[in-house]
């Protein structure tokens, strides 16, 4: 009976396992293989040494990633908090509005920003009325790249924070008020610590794609803000140097893993009580 059952469950799990092997495990090995070989397929560390030239790119990517994550958090947290106090119906409508842009393709959304930000774009035209127009428009700047990231990834910050906020036991909040906490005390001492798990997953979901983004920086940065994602893309697409591209990818992966580990460490110690609900 037991044996039969485990055979059955194995059978059911098989497609998933197969999928994971073909599309996750094998590609990972391929990346590692390319990263440590040269064009002839011989083992080498050259690709890794070559990365020195990309240190500024890595740093810029990390910086932009952190910056957009921080901005997303600053916008998303109060938004999610206030949203969770609304009536159930308004909450649904608002969530709908937040999700709506995500139904559109990233390319289209990014192109729209190009149209808004360029020299003859909508923003500049509006500002022109007040005599505030910028001579070169706002496109092709670091700010435009960060704006693009924030715009694209903001929902991924709002959603997990909002989810945990909406599940907060209202009587715990009432207890904090009852014990003498004003709005700020309640937020700082109860709501925020209890919403940390949501904050952590929000940060993860924004930071990872921000660090490795490539398309947004090309379109909104005008090519002058090459991020690590762009570097990887160009190695595979134009330079045809799979080996260097793979080593770049590998290092990026390791960087992200380290960031996540640090993040989890930070919450584990703070969160021994575990997330409620």
């Amino acid at each position: 009976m037991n044996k039969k059952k485990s055979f059955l469950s194995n059978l059911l799990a098989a497609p998933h396992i197969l999928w994971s092997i073909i599309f996750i495990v094998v590609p990972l090995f391929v990346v590692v293989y390319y990263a440590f070989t040269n064009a002839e397929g011989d083992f080498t560390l050259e690709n890794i040494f070559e990365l020195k030239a990309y240190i500024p790119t890595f740093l810029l990517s990390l910086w932009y990633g952190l910056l957009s994550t921080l901005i997303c958090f600053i916008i998303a947290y109060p938004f999610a908090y206030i949203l969770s106090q609304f009536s159930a119906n308004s909450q649904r409508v608002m969530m709908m509005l937040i999700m709506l842009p995500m139904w559109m393709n990233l390319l289209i959304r990014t192109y729209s920003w190009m149209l808004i930000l360029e020299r003859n774009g909508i923003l500049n035209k509006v500002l022109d009325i007040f005599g505030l127009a910028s001579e070169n428009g706002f496109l092709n700047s670091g700010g435009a790249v960060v704006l693009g990231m924030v715009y694209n990834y903001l929902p991924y910050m709002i959603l997990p924070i909002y989810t945990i906020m909406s599940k907060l036991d209202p009587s715990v909040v009432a207890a904090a008020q009852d014990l003498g906490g004003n709005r700020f005390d309640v937020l700082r001492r109860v709501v925020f610590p209890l919403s940390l798990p949501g904050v952590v997953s929000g940060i993860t979901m924004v930071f990872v794609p921000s660090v490795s983004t490539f398309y947004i920086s090309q379109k909104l940065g005008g090519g002058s803000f090459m991020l690590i994602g762009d570097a990887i893309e160009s190695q595979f697409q134009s330079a045809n140097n799979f080996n260097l591209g793979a080593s770049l990818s590998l290092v990026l992966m390791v960087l992200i893993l380290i960031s996540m580990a640090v993040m989890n460490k930070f919450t584990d110690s703070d969160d021994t009580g575990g997330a409620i609900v």
Partner: protein
Amino acid sequence: MENNIIIDLKNISVSFDGEPILKDLNLYIRDKEFITFLGPSGCGKTTTLRVIAGFIEPDSGDVIFDNKRINDVPPHKRQVNTIFQRYALFPHLNVFENIAFGLRLKKAPKQEIEETVTAMLKLVNLKGFEKRNIQSLSGGQQQRVAIARALANKPRVLLLDEPLGALDLKLRKDMQNELKNIQQQMGITFIYVTHDQEEALSMSDTVVVMNNGVIQQIGTPIKIYNEPKNAFVADFIGESNIIDGIMREDFQVDFSGHRFECLDKGFAPNEKVDVVVRPEDVDVVDVDKGMVKGEVTSVTFKGVHFETIVDIGGFKWMIQSTDYHEVGKKIGLFIEPDAIHIMKKSEYSGLYGDYSSFSEEFDELSDASVDNGEEE
């Protein structure tokens, strides 16, 4: 109990989405008393508590605390603390920090915090639990932490919202005693909300019986039990046989086809009334010696006594006695004057106090209570 009034609720009305929850409620609460709001769910008892705590602002009426109107004072500035139904402890803080929460907000000195927390843990019998995690505690222990946390703030009034509802029976009894002790030790006012009549009777100085947003009766537990004001109170507090009767004159009442002597007066001659006889106040005698006679229709063994249902002229009485009378036996009932309590007719008359649903012949007796006491 000649204490000052600490809380005075004047003409309080509250409604949610147009549905009235509290209807023109008037109530004063004395300092240092143990008062209980008792009623079925939805009667408005918790709402009243939340009005006092400040979580609900009444649509109309005044909340007076210590002679000052506090309608506009937010919860965190009121000198009351609440024990919530499901404790509402802070899961991210340990026991010590939970109890210290209020004191930290007040920026109390470190030493005072430590002393108070230690004293509170001692008060609720949780010495040595400081570093424990909230989730690792049992329900009873969490409840104690909640009590300690509220009392650490040194409130003038402690509000308890069905605090023992989630505990098992044995633990509940222990906690009842403990709460009562704590109240006397601290010398503060306890306002307790429950739907458990036994809890209300055994702990309170004053019981407030509520139903449908209206106070039905206010009084000491003994008075509430012995002299219920209407059929609702009589039925809600303990078991009651509530029979239609006619007050012939002072101290003389007719019901179940017999004239009884009683201790009540002040009714109009021949006024229709509700008569309450508690099941434990009825004496079972031989058929020929009984004031009224009937046939046993069911018997249930309850441990301390037998619960015997007797059919008297179509009305089912409940009698609690230590003697066993088998089903089908004809018995007589003897009722002393002080076992009879007369109530004025109310909106609740005829709704309660008939035990026909206890009978096996339930269906044929659905109209049993209607024609009773009418025989002239």
